[in-house]
């Protein structure tokens, strides 16, 4: 995304809104992660406590999801940069 055509007041306004969106993105990512790891790891409801096996699965699931998101984000940024270099200039 290219903001060079925006004036300083507009850029400042955008920055503030983007900070708010990043907080919302983070919260949504958090709840998606809980949902995803719960659904994948918890299948036994004969007990209300998390078993040690389930707990380990949740920790690995969280860990792996974040690493996955980071890798996707890195590739996404590269592809986006390529697409914009080709498209807008």
């Amino acid at each position, binding site marked *: *995304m290219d903001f060079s055509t925006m004036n300083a007041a507009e850029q400042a306004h955008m920055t503030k809104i*983007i900070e*708010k969106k990043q907080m919302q993105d983070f919260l949504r990512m*958090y709840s998606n*992660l809980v949902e995803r790891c719960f659904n994948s790891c918890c*299948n036994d409801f004969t007990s209300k*406590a*998390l078993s040690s096996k389930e707990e380990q699965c949740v920790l690995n699931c969280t860990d792996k999801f*974040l690493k996955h998101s980071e890798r996707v984000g890195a590739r996404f940024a590269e592809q986006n940069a390529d697409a914009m270099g080709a498209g807008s200039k």
Partner: protein
Amino acid sequence: MSFLGRGNTPAGGVNPERVEMALQELDMITDVFNKLVTSCHTKCISARYAEGDLNKGESVCIDRCVSKFFEVNKKVGEKLQTMGAGAAGAGATQSAFGQM
């Protein structure tokens, strides 16, 4: 889930920042609740719908399901704090605005 900070209070009027934060927290709670309802429905409720009441097995399953979901919520929260992953969340926003 009260992990959002609070701003300073003015005397009588509405502090938009504080209202904003409370609304963000409310949206978060609603989102988690809706996911909880859906997940436990998938885990506990038979899709045959032979009757309209919850049977004994379904009721017990729901109670345990909510309890486990909260434990998972706690574990994921702790893990995110350990990893200092606040940054990793807003992937697209950061990818798209890295140059600002």
